[in-house]
C-alpha cells in the first residue's frame, strides 16, 4: 500500500482535489437531505386513512327548484343505494376524508373558553358511516339511527355524542386513550360523550398536524346538496360508479349529480404535490450524482493522461497492473473521503436548518453515514474505468515518449 505517497502527491494538486471534493460534498448534502425528504413524504403518503379506500367512491347531489325536498330525496337515495347489488353500504356525510375540504371543531375538557383547545375534524353523518368506511371500532359502540339528529346548519352544530379516532381520544385523554369511552369533552359549551373509538380515521387535510384526529358525529344537515359515500364489494367499484350516477340521475330530475370520484383518485389528487415533489427531488439527485460522477471521471481521466509517463515509469520500476489500478482507486478514495467528510458536516448543518425552518422531523443518524458510503461507492465505480485503462499503459512509455 502506498497511502502516504498518494496523500502527499495529492496535496501538491490541491485545487483539483478541493474542487471535486466540494462537488462531492454538495452532492452528498443535497442527495442525503433530498432522500430524507422523499422518505418523509412517502411515509406521509403511506399513512392509512382508516377507510377501505380501494372499494370506495362518492358523489354529490344538488337539488334545485321548489319541488325539491332534500330530506326526502336523501332518504330515498340512501335507501336506493343500499339496495343496489354490489354496494355494501352508503352514507350521507358532510365531507370526505383526505379530500382537502371539511369541518373542524376545537375541543376542550372543560366548558372554559380560556383553556387551550384540541382540534379535530368532524364528520357529520349517520349510523352507517362506520360500516361504509369500514372503520375498525376498537372500543365502545357506534351510534344508532335514532341518535341521528336532522337539522339545518343555521340551527347550530350541536352533537351530544361522538365516535372518535384513537389519536383524538389520546389527544383529549392522554391517560385513558383506548379506555376513554364514556368520557365527556366540550365543543364550545356543549358536552359531548365519547361512545366509541375507532383505530384510525383521518381528517380531510393531509398536511394538517391533526390529520389523525377526527370523529363521526350523529348529525345530518338538511341542505340541497348531499354527499354520498359508498363502499362496494371488491372489484365492483368502477362499474358501480357509472351505474350509481345513472341510477341517481334517473331517480329524481330536480337535481344534478356531480363530483363523482373514487377514493383512490382523491388520494392521488391530495398527495399530488407530495408525489411530484418526490419525483422532482429524485430527478435532482440523479442529475447531481451523474454530474458529479462525470466530474470524477473527468478528473481521473485528466490526471491519468497527465501522468501517462509516470504510470509507464512506475510499470518499468516494477508496478503490476493491479498496483496501478489500486493506486488510482485509492487516490479517488481519498478525494471522495475528503468530499464526504465535508459533505457530512454540510449535510447535518443543512438538515438542522431544514428541520428548524420547515418544522420537519430531524433526520435519522444513519442517513449521513449511508450517504458517505454511497458517494464513496459511486466515486469508486466512476473511477474504475479510467483506472483500468491506466493499468494497461505500456511500461515502454517510460522510454518511448519524451
Amino acid at each position: 500500500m502506498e497511502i502516504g505517497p498518494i496523500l502527499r502527491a495529492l496535496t501538491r494538486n490541491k485545487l483539483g482535489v478541493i474542487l471535486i471534493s466540494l462537488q462531492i460534498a454538495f452532492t452528498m448534502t443535497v442527495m442525503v437531505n433530498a432522500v430524507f425528504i422523499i422518505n418523509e413524504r412517502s411515509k406521509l403518503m403511506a399513512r392509512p386513512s382508516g377507510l377501505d379506500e380501494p372499494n370506495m367512491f362518492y358523489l354529490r347531489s344538488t337539488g334545485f327548484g321548489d319541488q325539491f325536498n332534500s330530506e326526502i330525496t336523501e332518504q330515498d337515495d340512501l335507501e336506493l343505494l343500499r339496495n343496489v347489488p354490489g354496494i355494501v353500504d352508503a352514507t350521507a356525510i358532510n365531507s370526505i376524508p383526505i379530500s382537502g375540504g371539511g369541518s373542524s371543531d376545537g375541543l376542550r375538557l372543560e366548558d372554559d373558553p380560556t383553556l387551550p383547545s384540541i382540534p379535530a375534524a368532524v364528520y357529520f353523518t349517520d349510523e352507517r358511516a362506520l360500516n361504509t368506511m369500514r372503520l375498525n371500532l376498537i372500543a365502545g359502540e357506534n351510534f344508532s339511527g335514532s341518535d341521528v339528529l336532522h337539522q339545518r346548519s343555521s340551527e347550530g352544530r350541536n352533537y351530544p355524542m361522538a365516535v372518535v379516532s384513537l389519536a383524538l381520544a389520546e389527544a383529549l385523554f392522554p391517560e385513558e386513550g383506548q379506555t376513554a369511552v364514556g368520557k365527556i369533552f366540550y365543543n364550545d359549551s356543549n358536552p359531548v360523550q365519547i361512545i366509541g373509538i375507532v383505530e384510525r380515521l383521518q381528517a380531510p387535510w393531509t398536511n394538517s398536524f391533526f390529520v389523525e384526529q377526527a370523529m363521526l358525529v350523529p348529525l345530518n344537515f338538511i341542505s340541497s346538496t348531499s354527499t354520498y359515500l359508498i363502499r362496494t364489494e371488491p372489484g365492483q367499484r368502477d362499474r358501480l360508479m357509472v351505474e350509481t350516477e345513472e341510477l341517481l340521475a334517473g331517480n329524481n330530475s330536480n337535481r344534478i349529480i356531480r363530483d363523482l370520484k373514487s377514493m383512490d383518485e382523491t388520494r392521488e389528487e391530495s398527495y399530488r404535490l407530495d408525489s411530484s415533489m418526490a419525483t422532482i427531488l429524485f430527478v435532482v439527485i440523479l442529475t447531481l450524482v451523474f454530474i458529479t460522477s462525470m466530474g470524477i471521471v473527468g478528473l481521473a481521466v485528466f490526471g491519468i493522461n497527465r501522468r501517462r509517463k509516470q504510470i509507464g515509469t512506475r510499470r518499468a520500476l516494477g508496478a503490476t497492473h493491479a498496483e496501478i489500478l489500486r493506486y488510482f482507486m485509492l487516490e479517488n478514495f481519498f478525494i471522495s473521503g475528503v468530499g464526504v467528510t465535508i459533505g457530512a458536516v454540510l449535510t447535518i448543518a443543512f438538515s438542522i436548518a431544514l428541520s428548524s425552518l420547515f418544522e420537519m422531523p430531524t433526520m435519522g443518524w444513519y442517513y449521513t453515514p449511508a450517504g458517505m458510503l454511497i458517494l464513496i461507492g459511486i466515486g469508486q465505480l466512476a473511477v474504475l474505468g479510467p483506472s483500468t485503462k491506466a493499468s494497461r499503459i505500456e511500461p515502454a512509455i517510460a522510454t518511448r515518449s519524451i
Partner: protein
Amino acid sequence: MLNMKNIRKVFRTDLVETCALDDFSLTVDQGEFVTITGPSGCGKTTFLNIAGLLETHTSGLYLLDDVDVSQLGDYARAKLRNQKIGFIFQSFNLMPDLNLFDNIDVPLRYRGMKSAERKERIDKALDSVGLFARRKHVPAQLSGGQQQRVAIARALVGDPLFLLADEPTGNLDSNTAKGVMALLEEINDSGTTIIMVTHDQSLAQQSKRNIHILDGRISNASNETANKEATAA
C-alpha cells in the same frame, strides 16, 4: 547474466512492419560497462526495452540470469523488473509530485519491503549521490544533473543485477554530463553492471566495451571484450 540469441523485434502497425532488431545476439557479464551506439532509429532503445523487459521480443532467446523470460507473463515480468533491473532514463522520469525520498521509495514499495529497511536503503542511496540533505525537495527544485542523480539513486536502491540507461546524459550540458558519467563509472567500479545507450562518441570510446548497432543489427563490436565475442561468434 544477460544472454540474447538471435533476437528479432518487429513492430506491426496497420500499414507497416518495422523490423527494429534483427538477428541480435549479445552476452553481457557481471561487472561490465557496455555502451550502445548507433544512428537514430537503429534500434538502441528497442534493445534496451527488451533487455529491461519493458517490451517483448518477437523471436529469439533471451536468458536473464539464466531464466528464459520469453514465456513470462506480465506480472512475473513486472516483478523481475522490480528486483533485477535498474532504469535510468534520458528525461529522468521522476514523479514530480513526490519528494526525493518518496521518489526513490517507489520501486521499494513495489517490492513490499518493510518501512525501516526502505528508509535505511533510501537514506544510503541519497547519500551515495550526495543529495541526502535535499530529500524533502521535489524534483522541480533540482537541476537536471541533480535530478538524474536522484534517478540513479532510485535505480540503485533495490540492488539490481544491472542498470539500463538510455542516453542518461542526453538532456544535460557537457559539464553536468561528465559528473553523471563519473558517478556511473564509480558505480560500475563497485561492481554493478551497466548497459548504456549514448550518442556521445567520446563516451563510447572511453568505455570498456562498445556495441554499435546499424539497422537493428550489431555492426561492429569494438574494444577488447567485444572483439573477443565477435571472433567467437
